[in-house]
């Protein structure tokens, strides 16, 4: 009957109960949306940056990060690529030979980044061909090149034109070639779009006199959360002087941005929690004052304070639970909607994203643990605030309370 009494008490003042439950509900919804936007954006940033640039993991020469020259390229040991491909959790492996060159057309010359790729493997991994706006994508052994549309504009070239490539090959030899433009990519990142040239791996190895050499074996993962485990496991298969590095080491500025943004997001969440806590606390204080006489009467009749407190606590839990449940019922579909319909950013925020090499899109996360965690945190805060009557009852004197 005590639980029944608590339940009936919850509904004796419907408006008050609904106000408290609605406060909790909106807190859960806001917390879910805020956190979903944050986690979703981070996941998207990482996904976008790894797909367009680095992959999740790379096998590089241990000095390549400090000295990005062909001197730090390597010939992959026999069987290494197969070992990586067969490793559980690794979804794709693609070799790359990256270097620099001057590319000229007529009187215009630009410094560009050259990527020698395995067209099929790279496209399967990075979905590069989806950015193709003119011409066709590379094929294996292709002797032509594709480039960013921004770079093509600067060089004033289009599909079918020829460009002259001039660079420094392996061991300082001259690397030069005349190459046809086969396709143009409208890459989402201005930095890449204005400087990227892609060629087949074998062609770059030939021009740069680096047969069989790569600067990296790039890997994508089935589940990015498993990166640390896979990295450790991979390290056992990679002989010196090669090493396995992850996207956080390759893009430290992105990692730092996420850390800072996450911290500020948590501060915003804490402010939201505090606002809700004060709201719930105020309502509970008012409710307690209204019921002082009733608490006194029950105590006078012989209801021990511990039982009174238990009934009051059960009431608080019930109201907070209703609010948290309603918050989940509203928050989850909203978050799922935004997962399916991400928000495209514009203005300064978009520019900030592009600076980091990320497509300017605000994505949302639908991680189940995030929903549960937010509902639980708000629920606990609400219950904690709603425990005020317990302290009130503990200090109450029945003879005084029944006169109110």
């Amino acid at each position, binding site marked *: *009957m*005590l639980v029944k*009494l608590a339940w*009936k*008490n919850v*509904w*004796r003042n419907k408006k008050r109960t609904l106000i408290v439950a609605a406060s909790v509900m909106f807190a859960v919804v806001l917390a879910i949306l805020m956190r979903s936007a944050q986690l979703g954006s981070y996941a998207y940033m990482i996904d976008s940056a790894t797909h367009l640039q680095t992959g999740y993991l790379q096998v590089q020469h241990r000095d390549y990060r400090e000295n990005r020259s062909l001197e730090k390229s390597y010939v992959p040991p026999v069987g290494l690529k197969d070992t990586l491909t067969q490793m559980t959790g690794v979804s794709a492996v693609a070799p790359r030979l990256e270097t620099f060159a001057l590319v000229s057309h007529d009187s215009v010359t630009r410094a560009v980044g050259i990527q020698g790729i395995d067209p099929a493997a790279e496209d399967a991994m990075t979905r590069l061909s989806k950015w193709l706006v003119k011409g066709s994508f590379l094929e294996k052994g292709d002797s032509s090149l594709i480039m960013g549309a921004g770079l093509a504009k600067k060089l004033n070239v289009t599909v079918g034109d020829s460009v002259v490539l001039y660079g420094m090959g392996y061991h300082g030899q001259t690397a030069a070639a005349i190459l046809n433009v086969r396709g143009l990519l409208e890459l989402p990142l201005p930095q890449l779009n204005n400087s990227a040239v892609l060629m087949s791996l074998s062609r770059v190895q030939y021009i740069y006199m680096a047969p069989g050499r790569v600067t990296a074996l790039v890997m994508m993962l089935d589940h990015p959360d498993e990166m640390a485990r896979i990295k450790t496991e991979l390290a056992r298969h990679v002989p010196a002087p090669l090493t396995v590095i992850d996207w956080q080491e390759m893009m430290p500025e992105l990692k730092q941005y996420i850390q800072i943004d996450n911290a500020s997001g948590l501060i915003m969440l804490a402010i939201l929690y505090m606002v809700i806590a004060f709201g719930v606390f105020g309502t509970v204080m008012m409710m307690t004052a209204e019921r002082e*006489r*009733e608490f006194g*009467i*029950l*105590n*006078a*009749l*012989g*209801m*021990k*304070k511990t*039982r009174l407190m238990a009934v009051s606590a059960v009431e608080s839990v019930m109201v907070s639970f209703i609010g948290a449940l309603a918050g989940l019922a509203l928050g989850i579909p909203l978050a799922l909607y935004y997962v399916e319909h991400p928000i495209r950013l514009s203005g300064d925020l978009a520019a900030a994203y592009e600076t980091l090499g990320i497509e300017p899109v605000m994505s949302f996360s639908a991680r189940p643990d995030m929903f549960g965690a937010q509902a639980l945190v708000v629920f606990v805060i609400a219950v904690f605030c709603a425990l005020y009557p317990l302290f009130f009852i503990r200090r109450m004197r*029945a*003879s005084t309370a*029944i006169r109110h």
Partner: protein
Amino acid sequence: MALIDVRHITKTYNSTAVPVHALRDVNVHFEKKEFTAIVGPSGSGKTTLLNILGGLDAPTSGEVLIGGQNITGMKESALVEFRLRHIGFVFQAYNLIPVLTAIENVEFIMLLQGVGKKERHERARTLLADVGLADRLDSRPSQLSGGQQQRVAVARALASRPRFVLADEPTANLDSESTTSLLDMMEEMNAKYEMTFIFSTHDARVIERAHRVITLEDGRFQEDKQ
């Protein structure tokens, strides 16, 4: 041995700038089956005495023995248990639990006592029938008149099978007809269950029906009329 023995009770409230002497050396005892009214003007100490008899308040000095047991020095939790087992209360404003029905209100005290579901339901039905509310068992307090609510309150007070019932101005909020009806019912309960009733009241109609009238004035015992 007296049912209730009040010995040299003094109560002084020191919370105000000038101490208020609510009771000054009151000595009185109550026997089983009494139907007693405590009367006196406002501020005479009636409610304070009732609170001390019910263990809701502690005297500044003196002691109260109920069935020979001194309740004056009891710990709060023990006093709550004592009230639950031995004392019934009826309040001026009825103070039923608004979300419970009449029968649930009466059962509630027995629930606190640990009485089994079947027994407490039977006892509650019988008591509500005794107070003339057999047909209002499932009514909420808000669906009952003031007089009916006070009848439920009396049934609730009797439900715990207490040694005595304390009623603080039980007719103050009732009209004349309801007052008469309530007093008839309480006298009947007094006779049927040999229950001791102690009232505080201003009401002449209650004083007329009381078997014993104790008068207080300025916290002092003035008169004890049988």
